[in-house]
């Protein structure tokens, strides 16, 4: 157990060591935030509504999207995929640890830096764009936001495992990102999408990444609905964690021997 805590601590230190890189990443994602603010302000000017969202609500939605895009993402699945691709994972296999848990500890170590970035950006956003709705059901919202971390990790880990077969991560990550962006509701709220896409999103885990915490934040669901969304998040987190465990067991049999 101690090793996982140490890993998280070291990973946190590493993220602070790379503060320039994070500053750059934050600047880029803030730019995205400003762009979507401009877009939605134009679309929803004069008290217009789209899919039941007012401009003020949409601002709140944007903030949640920003937050959930950062949560569990500071360390990034690339470092996991690279470990598999360059064979470093072979070394994990001769250590008395579970690779998946160790990698999760690494991802979890990014949490403090993520909180800093999200907090800073949120403050700037409110100063720039004016008030956003106060969060409804803050406790459920916090749980929902925290669940994004293990869920995003599970999805990322599962995607990275594909590298065992493809030996390349680019294509896999791009495809997954395209699907995830659309079906998580981080591009536009799911309510604005055609019915068939909404149905697709409902049966896939991606909506639990962004749409669920955003709907809880805005009070678009009642308490029962919010509990249902969190329950679904828990279901996906657990299911994907164990699914990834099985996949890892299968995949590590696939370890091919590069270089004799």
């Amino acid at each position, binding site marked *: 157990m*101690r*090793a996982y*805590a*140490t*890993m998280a601590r*070291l990973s946190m*230190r*590493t993220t602070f*060591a*790379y503060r320039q890189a994070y500053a750059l990443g934050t600047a880029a994602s803030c730019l995205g935030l400003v762009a979507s603010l401009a877009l939605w302000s134009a679309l929803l000017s004069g008290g217009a509504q789209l899919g039941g969202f007012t401009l003020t609500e949409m601002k709140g939605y944007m903030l949640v999207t920003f937050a959930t895009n950062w949560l569990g993402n500071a360390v990034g699945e690339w470092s996991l995929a690279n470990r598999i691709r360059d*064979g*470093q994972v*072979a*070394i994990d*296999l*001769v*250590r*008395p*640890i579970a690779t998946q848990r160790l990698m999760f500890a690494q991802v979890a170590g990014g949490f403090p830096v993520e909180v800093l970035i999200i907090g800073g950006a949120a403050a700037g956003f409110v100063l720039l764009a004016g008030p956003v709705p106060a969060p409804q059901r803050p406790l459920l919202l916090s749980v929902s936001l925290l669940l994004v971390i293990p869920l995003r990790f599970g999805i990322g880990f599962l995607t990275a495992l594909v590298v065992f077969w493809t030996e390349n991560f680019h294509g896999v990550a791009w495809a997954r990102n395209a699907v995830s962006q659309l079906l998580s509701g981080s591009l536009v709220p799911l309510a604005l999408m055609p019915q068939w896409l909404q149905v697709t999103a409902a049966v896939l885990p991606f909506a639990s990444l962004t749409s669920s915490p955003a709907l809880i934040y805005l009070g678009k669901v009642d308490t029962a609905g919010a509990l249902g969304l969190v329950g679904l998040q828990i279901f996906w987190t657990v299911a994907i964690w164990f699914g990834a465990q099985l996949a890892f067991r299968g995949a590590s*049999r696939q*370890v*091919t*021997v590069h*270089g*004799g």
Partner: protein
Amino acid sequence: MALLEAENLTKTFRRPEKDPGLKGSFKHLIQRRFTTMTAVDRVSLSIEAGEAVAYVGPNGAGKSTTIKLLTGIVEPTSGEVRVGGIVPHRNRIANSRQIGVLFGQRTQLWWDLPVRESLALLRDMYDLTPDQYRRRLQRFEEVLGLDELLPVLARKLSLGQRMRADLACALLHDPKIVYLDEPTIGLDIAVKDRVREFLRQLKAEGTTIILTTHDLGDIEDTCERIVIIDGGRIIYDGSLAQVKDEYARERRVHLQLAEDLPLDVLALRFPQALVTAGETHREFTVAFDKADLTAGAILAGVAQTAEILEVRIDEPAIEDVVRKVYAGELTLSETAS
């Protein structure tokens, strides 16, 4: 029972059979053909606690794959392996506590962390007490000069420094058995010597060592047993001294004389040996089988005809034997033990 027992270990891989170029790749998409490669072919090994075994063979012979099978990284296609009673690929975690592994071509340090932090992480993985940890670090300072590397980021280490730090990583938990896959690859002479000295000490402390290398200098002072593998099969398994004794019997005496001497004179004097002329008429090389002649007899014989100024005697190295085996010039007769 031996510490490590492997029986008929076999590993086969499927390799896609593609014609060259884009066309070949497309064709492969539709009509998939594979060739089966046997990387390791019915390898049986039995290694006792405290033994130091050199595992050598040409590139692609299956050395690294064998190590991956023995450590449990790769599952065998068929055959059995047990290390300290544990089947490595079925019980990875229990196995990992008793083994240390070094892949010379790959670091186990975390790239973005100082060496000290990588070691601290390993300390926690292996549940070492602070006291055990301190004693191990002290030991590594003595034999590897580790202290100066502790604050350095792994990515800033030179290759030689990295190998020293990696050795510390592999041995931090005081494993019963150590697999070293090319521990001196790419190192300069000074660092090589240091690593070799470390291996000797490790052996003296009773650690079981399995060492693969292309640099046979690594094994001469460390290992008393040599296993030679080629094409995935063990072609020799026996004592290093015996290999040298049986297959490295040729000696060469290089002579520099005070005066010119015709080649024939020496050639006639030593009919069992092969005498060749050197660069000048005063230099000769006498090659002989140590069963037929001795260096002393050569010197005594030459001294009767000419004054000897300089003498150099070449002892064959295990390297020469192995090189001949690789080149197919020498077939080792029996597999001992």
